């Protein structure tokens, strides 16, 4: 790559890596390699975050993440985890409605032994 482009990408780097040609080229190339890999990792990381949030939100309504997803797929709801986590954060009543739906579907599935989390 052009050395000017390298220096432009090397803004904010530590020490001489932003000023000297060979050091900057090395660090920038490493940064771009990380970027390539991280574009694939980003998808995994966000999905893990969404699942954590859905888990936390559903446990407030006496459901685990796995049971909620089972219930939603059994009742043919195709809302994805990104939106479910957004609803858990910003639309609590809609999320509660989804948990009610999931529990309703779980109780109708054959061979399930759905146990509520809290003693009733």
């Amino acid at each position, binding site marked *: *790559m052009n050395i000017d482009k390298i220096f432009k990408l090397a803004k904010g780097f530590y020490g001489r890596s932003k000023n000297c040609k060979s050091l900057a080229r090395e660090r920038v*190339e490493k940064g*771009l*390699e990380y*970027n*390539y890999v991280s*574009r694939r990792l*980003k998808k995994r990381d*966000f999905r893990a975050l969404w699942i954590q949030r859905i888990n936390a939100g559903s446990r407030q309504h006496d459901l685990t993440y796995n049971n909620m997803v089972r219930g939603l797929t059994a*009742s*043919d*709801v*195709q*809302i*994805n985890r*990104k*939106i479910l986590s*957004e*609803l858990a954060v910003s*639309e609590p*009543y*809609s999320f*509660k*409605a*989804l948990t*009610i*739906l999931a*529990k*309703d579907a779980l109780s109708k599935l054959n061979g399930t032994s759905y146990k509520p989390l809290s003693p009733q």
Partner: protein
Amino acid sequence: MIRLLNNLSKNDVSTLKSTMNLFNPLIYTKNAYSSSNNATLNNSNVISEAISNNSEIEKVQNYNNKNQFKTLDNAFAVVHVSGKQYKVIKGDVIMTDKLHVAAGEHIVLDKVLLLGSKDSTAIGTPILDGVKVHAFLEEQTKAEHVTIFKHKRRKNYKRTTGFTPLATYLRIGDIINSNENQNNIGL
């Protein structure tokens, strides 16, 4: 579709299976998780502040009257566009995949998965029948440029390419519900 009032207990669930429409693609979107670039545009003075022109209001009203729809105030919808889902309200601007529609056109989004308002939520199985979302194409531009750099150490192998995906910005208009559906959904 299933309608649930908020703050309702498990015993009050009533389920109505919707007539399954075939997924009839109208307009489709791609959302990037990176929020920093969603607001920037190449010609950034184009984005309006949710002020609809008279012509846009007329188009929406024509559609609504012709097909007997009613607008919903203070509602949000989860919309499925080109393989991605978005939670939208009126006045939102969303960045999606390139749509083969000219800029400035009026669009109706068909696949609504969930509709929520202050009093109740309607959950589609999987889509809600008769609920649609108006949208206006703001702009067709390029999204953020990505540099693809591959390198194997000590093997003298290095490749550099670039990629700029194409994107459209959609400004969301009214969320509408058909009059026949009113009894089912109650919104």
